[in-house]
């Protein structure tokens, strides 16, 4: 799960506060709110030139494409780098060839994936040479170095032949990128991925992320030998834009926490790329801590779009009425939920968990995020626009009675408590439940609502709001901390496949002693087995059906209370012709232009 500007799952606090505070402004459905424009193509008369400004609250996570794992960074990186595959603005199903010349070929046994890469794609100055397949191999391998520390290749590429040996190699020498024997480069234009099992579907999706953007080894290894790697201060672009740099490649246009200045990459050949790259320059201006004034600045200003924040309720209301043509509400591909520890009494009792889910007012929870425009009320775990969503029940839900009434059903909750052995319909034990939540203003509201819900069911709760980082690293991500309720958890897709949403978060085999993201610690053998089988499916229809079925099984276990499938508001100035990238749910900087 990459960091998301909307979900409370690891983002700088100011941007979270901003994004969680969406307004109630009418017109919502599951997918993008249709009352507002959702441009996924540039206008026919789009003009070239000018500067687009992106306003943001905080900085990107890493300039290094091998390390970046954040929605806002991807917004910038997809304009700078060319991974093997990427997502054109309107595409939500299948990643399309980018550095790759065509879609990959998959061997009959489903274990070998072969890409041909485009000829004539060059690195920006000072590297100034053609990209080869070896540059893609190095880009992925260096991700295993602790100085680069890619956050997702361990999850999605561990099926590559020789992956474990590569990890052993990097443990013995962390300053050198290890060889992954399952990545072969028979010639400069061919790269072959050999898998130990039929996990090609996940691998192909993961190759649409920035880690597969080529990195020139001869140039980068001097920086990669340091820890952390300093390649991020010297990145070599392959896309239409690059960060301003000097003759040695040091980025002069990146002032951390202040500004990122992108200019045209002189070595980019438009004939090799579908991206039109209308703007001459893109400037990311950071440090806008107050999202309200920054949003107003965008709506009333010129040439601006939002970066890592969304308009807070008051501004969104205004935007939805006065600036209706300057607002879009694409879905984020993520959901937020309250995790219940399935290993800890009394929540280890399925009926108790069902009671909690039945009792909670999810409409009230959604109001903390801003109401209807913030997104649809969730009732299972695959969000809209992800394959499997409709098959799992879509907006109607899976049929679980305890999630039927969004406003909560205390009578049903009491019934479930009785089934759990509490004759009065309320908890009468002595256990005090530890509930931890993020301490931002809107997240505290979530905590308060859950506190009230648990108290109505007779529980004693010790509620501890802490910073988001502490919540994940010290409490919710550490099973030994024995947290009963993680009130403000959420998960965002890495790509449009349900596996990236359900496997890390609800597979019992993924429960870790630290950095655990299966927060409910759900460990049901039949679900684990179903996930293992579904991960190996290569046929898209079968895959979709299998993961939808898993979603139903998970929901039936009530390990967490899903309460919203987030929208991700995009705003822009009047003289901007935006193009929204539905995959990343942000403005697509390679397609957005200034109006004439």
């Amino acid at each position: 799960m990459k960091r998301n500007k909307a979900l409370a799952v690891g983002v700088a606090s100011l941007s979270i506060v901003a994004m969680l505070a969406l307004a109630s402004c009418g017109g919502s459905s599951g997918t993008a709110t249709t009352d507002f424009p959702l441009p996924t193509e540039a206008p026919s008369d789009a003009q070239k030139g000018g500067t687009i400004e992106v306003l943001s609250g905080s900085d990107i996570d890493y300039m290094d494409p091998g390390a970046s794992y954040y929605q806002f960074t991807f917004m910038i990186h997809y304009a700078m780098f060319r991974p093997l595959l990427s997502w054109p603005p309107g595409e939500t199903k299948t990643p399309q060839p980018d550095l790759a010349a065509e879609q990959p070929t998959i061997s009959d046994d489903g274990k070998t994936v072969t890409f041909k890469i485009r000829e004539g794609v060059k690195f920006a100055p000072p590297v100034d040479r053609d990209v080869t397949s070896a540059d893609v191999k190095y880009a992925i391998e260096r991700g295993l170095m602790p100085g680069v520390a890619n956050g997702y290749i361990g999850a999605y590429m561990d099926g590559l032949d020789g992956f474990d040996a590569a990890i052993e190699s990097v443990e013995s020498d962390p300053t050198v990128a290890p060889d992954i024997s399952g990545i072969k480069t028979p010639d400069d234009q061919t790269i072959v991925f050999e898998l130990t099992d039929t996990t090609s579907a996940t691998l192909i999706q993961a190759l649409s992320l920035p880690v597969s953007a080529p990195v020139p080894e001869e140039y980068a290894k001097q920086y990669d030998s340091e820890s952390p790697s300093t390649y991020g201060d010297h990145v070599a672009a392959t896309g239409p834009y690059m960060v301003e740099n000097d003759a040695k490649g040091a980025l002069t246009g990146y002032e951390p926490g202040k500004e990122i200045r992108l200019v045209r990459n002189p070595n980019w050949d438009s004939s090799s790329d579908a991206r039109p790259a209308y703007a001459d320059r893109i400037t990311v201006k950071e440090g806008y801590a107050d999202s309200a004034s920054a949003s107003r600045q965008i709506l009333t200003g010129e040439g601006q779009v939002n970066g890592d924040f969304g308009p807070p309720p008051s501004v969104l209301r205004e935007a939805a009425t006065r600036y209706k043509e300057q607002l879009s509400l694409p879905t984020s591909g993520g959901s937020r939920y309250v995790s219940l520890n399935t290993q800890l009494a009394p929540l280890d009792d399925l009926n108790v968990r069902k009671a909690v889910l039945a009792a909670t007012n999810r409409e009230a929870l959604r109001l903390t995020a801003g109401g209807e425009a913030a997104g649809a009320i969730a009732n299972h775990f695959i969000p809209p626009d992800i394959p499997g969503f409709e098959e799992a029940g879509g907006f109607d839900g899976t049929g679980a009675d305890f999630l039927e009434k969004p406003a909560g059903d205390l009578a049903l909750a009491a019934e479930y408590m009785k089934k759990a052995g509490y004759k009065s319909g309320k908890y009468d034990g002595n256990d005090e439940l530890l509930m931890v939540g993020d301490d931002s203003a809107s997240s505290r509201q979530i905590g308060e609502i859950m506190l009230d819900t648990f108290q109505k069911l007779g529980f004693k709760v010790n509620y501890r709001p802490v910073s988001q980082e502490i919540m994940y690293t010290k409490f919710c991500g550490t099973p030994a901390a024995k947290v009963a309720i993680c009130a403000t958890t959420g998960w965002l897709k890495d790509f449009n496949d349900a596996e990236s949403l359900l496997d890390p978060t609800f597979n019992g085999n993924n429960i870790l002693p630290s950095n655990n993201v299966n927060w409910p610690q759900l460990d049901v053998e039949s679900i684990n087995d179903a996930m293992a089988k579904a991960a190996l499916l290569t046929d898209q229809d079968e895959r979709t059906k299998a993961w939808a079925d898993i979603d139903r099984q998970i929901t039936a276990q009530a390990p967490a209370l899903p309460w919203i499938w987030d929208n991700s508001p995009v705003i822009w100035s009047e003289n901007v012709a935006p193009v929204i990238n539905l995959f990343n749910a942000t403005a697509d900087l390679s397609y957005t232009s200034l109006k004439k």
Partner: protein
Amino acid sequence: MLEYILRRVLWGVAMLFLVSGVIFVIFYLLPSADPATLRAGRQASPDQIERIRESLGLDRPVFIQYVDYMKQIFFHFDFGYSYQYETSVSSLIFDRLGPTASLTFGAAILWLLMGIPIGIISAVRARSLLDRSTMVISLALISAPVFWLGLISLYLFADDIGLIPILPGAGSYEPLSAGPIAWAGPLILPWTVLAAASAAVYARYLRSDMIDVMGEDYIRTARAKGLPERKVVMKHGVRSAITPVITLLGLDIGVLLAGNAILTESVFNIPGVGRLVLDAIDKADLPLIQGVTLFGAFFIVIFNLVVDIAYAYLDPRVRYDDL
């Protein structure tokens, strides 16, 4: 005098050691996010996190980490490497000092220019209508949160979102190298906001001290000698009453340079030290937190020293040679 300064400098160095040690202890003993885990991302395995911990040197005993850190500072002036920004801490701090210094010194001049005359006039005309109204206004300014005042000023006067768009708004900061007008224009609102509360505090302090001083025997003597009232007030009254204000000024400047203008910097998007440390705390970036804290402590020590020296000039009763 020289011996005194030397002694104060040595105390300052000792305090910097103490501060650095306390920060280390706080970071490791109290609940805080784990930098290795944050860097590893959500899907990293414990082994991967351990490798990162090792590569960042966080697996070594805390004491060894601390000693190495201090050695690097004293022998190489190296404050380490930011986990978050992947660049040297000292370059990050020096990069942010310009905006913070611009904000701090400009605001300090402004609050002195406002606070001192108001304090004097209020003291000289104590309990008059003018005194009472300035004190009410100052109380209101002290009570108004900087964050709120900043936003109100932006919504009123910023040239992008303001009702009366006459001054540059948030995110328009320019360094002095861009020219004095380009530099000063975007700072007018932040200076005013930051200075407002301090000016009120200074006015109240000075008024209170002045009222006490103006009742002293030597003031009566000065008047009896026939000195003009202006001279009595300025030469004997203010000079004596202003020393606590100077102490406050030294501390305020030190504290603001240390990153305490965080709210003003955030509201007006000024890329200063305050915003840097806020991000560092968010990301558990220990080298950066440590670096900013040490720089901050250094400024506080320096400005305290400057204050002590200023005493000698302002108050002849202080005999540094006797200390």
